[in-house]
């Protein structure tokens, strides 16, 4: 302890504690960083192979209209006339709303050539309820899938859908690979 003027015991203690606190904070940070291999950013995404189409994505997102939308993985689509994701089971094959599975009529059905139809999701209307995903997975190829749309997602620190997802399908994925689109029908086995 020095006896210099302006440097008393309290300053000494203060400086000591400050250095200790500073080192602790920086040390904690450094330790946290060593645990991370790359320090890259993460975004939330749904693994379509784990998703059980429970419908919570439509209601649990912090946004009034969920950031989860149905995405059509065209690679998988069979272009069926009778689309399990488009028509209610047992409905007439007409585009009337009463025949459609989608509660907001967000799926557009377009004739391509006999007997094939293309199905396009209107994301403006889609609410992420997964009804079509369930229908397509049960009766078709499973080409409809849910994905978190990153132009809409707020990237909350803790995704509120992820914490209620019953099948743990939502997890952090590296921001440079922000989507998990079913491309090839065999990739379900790899992943």
């Amino acid at each position, binding site marked *: 302890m020095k006896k210099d003027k302006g440097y008393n015991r309290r300053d000494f203690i203060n400086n000591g504690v400050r250095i200790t606190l500073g080192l602790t904070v920086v040390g904690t940070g450094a330790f946290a*960083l060593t645990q*991370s291999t790359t320090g890259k*950013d993460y975004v939330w995404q749904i693994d379509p192979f784990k998703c059980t189409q429970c419908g919570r994505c439509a209601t649990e997102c912090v946004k009034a209209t969920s950031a989860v939308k149905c995405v059509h993985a*065209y690679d998988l689509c069979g272009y069926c006339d009778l689309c399990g994701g488009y028509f209610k089971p047992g409905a007439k094959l007409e585009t009337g709303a009463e025949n459609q599975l989608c509660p907001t009529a967000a799926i557009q059905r377009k004739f391509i050539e006999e007997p094939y139809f293309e199905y*396009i999701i209107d994301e403006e209307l889609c609410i992420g309820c997964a009804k079509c995903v369930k229908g397509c997975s049960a009766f078709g*190829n499973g080409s409809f899938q849910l994905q978190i749309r990153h132009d809409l997602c707020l990237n*909350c620190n*803790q995704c509120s859908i992820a*914490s209620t997802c019953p099948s743990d399908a939502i997890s952090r994925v590296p921001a440079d690979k922000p989507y998990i689109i079913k491309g090839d029908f065999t990739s379900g086995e790899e992943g």
Partner: protein
Amino acid sequence: MIKKIPTRIFVFFLFLVMVGNFMQAQQRFPKPEFETGYVQPSPTTPEPRSIALEYFDVAVLLAVLSLASWLAIRKRSRRGLLWISIFSLVYFGFYRDGCICSIGAIQNVALSIFDPTYAISITALLFFLLPLLFALFFGRTFCAAACPLGAIQDLLVIHPISLPSWIRKTLGFIPVIYLGLAVLLAATGSDFIICRYDPFVGIFRMDGPFLMIFLGITFLLLGMFYARPYCRVFCPYGVLLSWMSKFSKWHMTITPSACIKCKLCKDSCPFDTIEKPVEQEYRIPEVSRKNLRRFILYIGLIPLLTLLGGWIGSRSHIYLSRVHPDVYLAELIITNPELKEDEANLDIQAFLEAGKSFEQLVEEAVVIRSKFKKGGWALGGFIGLVLGITLMNQVVFRRREDYEPHKGDCFSCGRCMDYCPVERPLRGK
């Protein structure tokens, strides 16, 4: 109904039976070969916010903190701090939608330390570190001008009332518990409660579940009378900042020269953080002896409180661990096995569908619960320790001849500087 099942579905079921595999191993309906030159569209994948912009946020934070520290300590400008805080409210609050924030970053740090599969991003880490380091040197200038949650409350301080010191100190202990709980729940990967119960994020986003908006409006209304209620009664990051700020090298001062003890600053502070000069009362031998006795008693209490807290914490680990969804689910299935038949219980149905065995789930839940047991010790011990130190500080008197801000609690908002009459003539020059 059965008659209506179209042949295609029938054929498909037949196909399923033949292949004998219900999963995606085969494409049920092969992709058609188009003759009309139809080009298959590919799904759009809008990119997330670029990483460069995330770093820009850190740069903005750094700039705001530097400017705020300069304004609080050198320039001594309340008006400057106010404008910076409005900027932060607009940028970090309304433009960045309240995410990322330093308060929530505590959980990312905790999770990355305890969960090897989770890696913290450098942005989140810097958001956690920078304000603490600034507080270590300049006081809580983060609270003054960089925190959007603080800014929105600060703007709505209308008629602050002053509560008795013991109520304030008791309320001020809640953040310690909140911090401990948040770290425990984040470290065990259960939940990010700071984010879930962030009261203002719904207002920043102008969208959100009812609870979020309701909490936000309640806090804002309350804040008209009890200034900055979230900061003073809940903010877990405030606890860390307060520890740092207590030992800050250069803290904002009320007056640039000698204090004339006019008491104007004390009335100007809506947060009751300005302490009056300590009367020499504590120097009286009897008082001093009494305080010394209490001091020794409290020091002796610290290890006891820590142990007691740890014990209580570990005893309550069963309750705490129910926050974790796996433990909750395992318990639910054990206590109510009939729920397995319940089609409406999505959690159980999804678990049964996923093909994980019940034993596996229980095993995982047991591991998580044992983590909670250790965590309960740490949480309770931490709360007990802080309680002990807080008690001890009640009988530690430091000589104070002027009106001074409490360095731990002061938000460095600068209102008192504006009120100090000593400065007025100086400013005129």
